[in-house]
């Protein structure tokens, strides 16, 4: 007990001593508080209230924004409007592979235009001439020509669009054909054909032989009651020649012909001879290289 009391007395003594010491002790700072304030005050004056510039208000940011928007718009524009045009010269046939695996087999003197980078968004192509299309299943597939438009989902069909003629024949699936002027339309199922009439509107012919309609695909000519003018036009296109004097067949007599020929086994002269012999009163002569003249014998 005595020890403990002694101990606590000693402790208190020590603490009292230390506290007296503490009162006399100071931390030896080299700079006084006033010095520090003086050093700081100058910096306080120059401190303008913090100016916050939002990120979107920085000139560079705006420029970058504008640039990226332009870039994106430009890129989309490029994708949208970049077009590929494929055309065939007389006597040439060509198969065009479209981005989704669909194909367009072009007959001679035909032209097709499409947008390869926009293809996945809309399968639209501009077309003039004659071609056989095989379309992969997918979104609407449209072929626009000057006289009409053909819309399908996934089928195979043949389009003939030259001058004022417009014919579409369907091999598989369903094909919708629209007239460009006027609003008549035709829905075709396999082995049906729609032909644009001179007076407007479509004439739908059922149970056609597609092989005949698109005989050109098999390197053949096939005509069934075709006006002679169309036949001569086809000869021009397939052989790359010019045939003059077609006015002579504009008379009262209706020149129509039917026939089938293998193109590679027949020359221009052979064909013209066959035609002239068919009608008896016609003849032809070669004016110069790749130019022929049709004559009517009175």
């Amino acid at each position, binding site marked *: 007990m005595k020890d403990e009391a002694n101990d606590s007395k*000693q402790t208190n003594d020590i603490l009292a001593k*230390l506290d007296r010491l503490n009162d006399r002790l*100071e*931390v030896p700072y080299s700079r006084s*508080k006033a010095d*520090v304030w003086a050093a700081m005050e100058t*910096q306080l004056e120059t401190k303008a209230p913090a100016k916050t510039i939002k990120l979107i208000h920085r000139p560079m940011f705006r420029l970058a924004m504008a640039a990226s928007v332009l870039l994106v718009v430009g890129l989309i524009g490029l994708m949208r409007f970049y077009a590929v045009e494929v055309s065939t010269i007389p006597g040439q046939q060509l198969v065009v592979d479209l981005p989704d695996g669909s194909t367009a087999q072009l007959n001679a003197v035909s032209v097709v235009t499409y947008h390869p980078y926009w293809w996945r968004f809309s399968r639209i192509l501009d077309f003039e001439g004659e071609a056989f299309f095989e379309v992969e299943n997918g979104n609407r597939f449209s072929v626009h020509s000057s006289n009409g438009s053909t819309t399908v989902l996934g089928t195979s069909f043949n389009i003939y669009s030259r001058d004022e003629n417009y014919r579409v024949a369907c091999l598989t699936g369903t094909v919708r054909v629209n007239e460009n002027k006027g609003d008549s339309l035709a829905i075709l199922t396999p082995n049906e054909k729609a032909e644009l009439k001179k007076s407007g509107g479509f004439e739908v012919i059922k149970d056609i032989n597609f092989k005949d309609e698109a005989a050109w695909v098999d390197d053949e000519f096939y005509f069934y009651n075709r006006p002679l003018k169309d036949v001569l036009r086809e000869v021009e296109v397939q052989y790359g020649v010019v045939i003059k004097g077609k006015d002579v067949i504009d008379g009262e007599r209706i020149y129509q012909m039917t026939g089938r020929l293998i193109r590679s086994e027949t020359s221009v002269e052979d064909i013209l001879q066959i035609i002239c012999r068919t009608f008896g009163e016609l003849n032809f002569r070669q004016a110069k290289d790749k130019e022929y003249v049709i004559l009517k014998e009175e």
Partner: protein
Amino acid sequence: MTLTKHEFKTLFDQHFDAIRNYIYYRSGDSDLATDLAQDVFLRLWEKQQDYHPKATVGLLYKMAGDEFISQYRRQKLDLNYKNSLAFEMEDVSPEEELEYKELQQRYEKALAGLPEKQRVVFLMSRMDGLKYHEIADRLNISVKAVEKRMKNALDDLKSKFKVR
């Protein structure tokens, strides 16, 4: 309401010494303590925060502590050896001087031997005369923790100063 310059000056007058001492108690480097304390006040001013008397003082201690830690890491100060605490004596009569000088040396050595947390609490209490709850508020610890650190520091000092 952001901190006005007048409020800032008041804050500085009231707390600069305590903040500077706090860093000194931790580091034992008086120049570092002055620089860091000035830095902390400047940074507080630049923050342009709202002024809440109590929270702002707590923030000052927090910033001072963080600043010290980052300095400490950067310079890898060896506090216990290079920068032991050193005080200056004032108002001492010649006859007392000898006794106090001797005591002061033992005291400084004993303080340097204390763990940092105990030393800081002990000196804030004894040198700066802060109450336990004030220390607890500023260091963001509980009053119980302050009491415990004080008790441990006192026990340690007692054993070192015991007259045999």
